[in-house]
């Protein structure tokens, strides 16, 4: 092997940035539209609605499967007369009670688990036992304990929310890097201040996904619980609305009820949780 041929050295002057000419190429209109997540998602929804409408028209049996337009008509009518809004609000009020209690309990249990070894074992055992148990399965027992009414539903909701949030928060706390823990202790943080100023924000990606899972569990459980027995007060929630309308064979209204359940789910996910994520974990560059 001979060495490579000798080449002369050279040194160049750098071109000033202003003399570059155009570096940024503007996006085409199509690229801009396609790059918008909202546009893509709305497009998917429109296609789904079109398929629904086409299939229902082909089936032509409104008792089994009403068309999209009939459902919308029923939906808008019942939104206009305030019935759906009232029922939704009844459901959401109960949900928020259960969610808030569950969240506080989850934080307490997790902090206990972080503080002591036995607390840690307790949390691990309890979540292993109760997380796989569908909350709705506790409803019969809850009815015996708390009677027909909000109490039973809130109990079941707390159960639906507590374990997934505790589990996510706990694994989030455990995942906080040793360096950050040492930094917190270096500046004299201990006890609750340490949890609040270091552990909670550092574990926030996990906590946020726990909150989302908890919300989804709670919403499902609530609608199911209401379907089973409504509530004691005459108004009842969305689940009850669906059940009632099924009994009078107003199927478009049943679908309108289901549609509302989905719509609220989408709104919470896309407005509330997305906003929280954008203001926190995304802004901080901590992806979950």
């Amino acid at each position: 092997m001979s060495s490579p041929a000798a080449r002369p050295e050279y040194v160049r002057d750098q071109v000033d940035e202003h003399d570059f000419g155009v570096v940024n190429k503007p996006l085409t209109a199509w690229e801009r539209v396609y790059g918008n997540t909202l546009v893509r998602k709305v497009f998917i929804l429109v296609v789904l609605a079109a398929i629904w409408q086409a299939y229902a028209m082909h089936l032509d049996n409104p008792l089994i499967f009403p068309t999209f337009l009939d459902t919308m008509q029923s939906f808008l009518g019942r939104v206009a007369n305030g019935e759906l809004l009232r029922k939704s609000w009844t459901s959401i009020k109960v949900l928020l009670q259960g969610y808030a209690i569950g969240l506080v309990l989850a934080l307490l249990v997790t902090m206990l688990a972080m503080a002591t070894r036995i607390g840690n074992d307790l949390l691990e055992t309890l979540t292993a036992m109760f997380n796989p148990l569908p909350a709705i399965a506790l409803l019969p027992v809850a009815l015996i304990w708390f009677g027909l009414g909000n109490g039973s539903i809130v109990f079941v909701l707390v159960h639906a929310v507590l374990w997934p949030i505790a589990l996510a928060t706990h694994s989030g706390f455990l995942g906080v890097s040793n360096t950050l823990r040492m930094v917190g202790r270096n500046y004299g943080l201990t006890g609750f201040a340490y949890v609040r100023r270091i552990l909670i924000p550092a574990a926030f990606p996990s906590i946020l996904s726990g909150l989302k899972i908890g919300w989804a569990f709670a919403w499902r459980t609530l609608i199911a619980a209401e379907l089973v027995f409504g509530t004691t007060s005459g108004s009842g929630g969305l689940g009850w609305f669906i059940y009632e309308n099924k009994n009078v064979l107003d199927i478009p209204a049943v679908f309108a009820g289901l549609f509302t359940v989905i719509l609220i789910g989408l709104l919470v996910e896309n407005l509330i949780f997305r906003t929280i994520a954008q203001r926190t974990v995304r802004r901080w560059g901590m992806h979950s």
Partner: protein
Amino acid sequence: MEAQAQKPLLAVQGVTLQYKTREHLVTATYRVSFDVLPSDRFVLLGPSGCGKSTLLKAVGGYLRPVEGAIRLKGAEVVRPGPDRVMVFQEFDQLLPWKTVKQNVLFALEASGRLAGREAEERAMAYIEKVNLTRFADSLPHTLSGGMKQRVAIARGMAMEPDILLMDEPFAALDALTRRKMQDELLQLWEGTKFTVLFVTHSIPEAVRIGNRILLLSPHPGQVKAELNSDGTDAEDASGRRLSDRIHKMLFSDGVIEPEATHV
């Protein structure tokens, strides 16, 4: 001779450190003693496994010696505290949910050192010292590795601790940035003459940064020598450069892999 008359700021006396892993009890250092005087740039130098980082953590108060004592201004070190601020190697030592300025403020306020306007002025003053004023409102994940380490140094210095503990703060940086950061650290030291205990496994870094270098041998860490440095890698009477002497001493055992040679 007048240095001898000065009282040590930090006195490490016969410190043996042990920690448990899953299988065994590891002895990290065995009866290590040294004194750090005010305004020292004291370097702990040794190959990996010599317990230098563990020793620094013990000075930080994260770990109690099983034998011997660590005293700061005469008081025994028992727990972490804001009078000894650590600067770590890892970039995630900054709180990612706080901006550069908030990170420095957080340290001052959480430790109860300063609050309100005073804290804010102190924070901005130290951010300016590390030339990051333009980035005061940036979040850490938007900064380069070198900038993050400068924020961590600013945060540590803003606390105006008795001693700044630096655990290989530049080891995760590229060679060019590392050189620059070493110079900057020395400039900062010229400004305030703070006391720093600096851990590294790089001989050139130790020679540049330190005015006093403690050499540790590995498994478990024991003091091998304590040398003076003027930062220029000067030759001694027999014409050998300081870095060559250190190199000889560290490799005389023949068991150490030559990983301690890069800059």
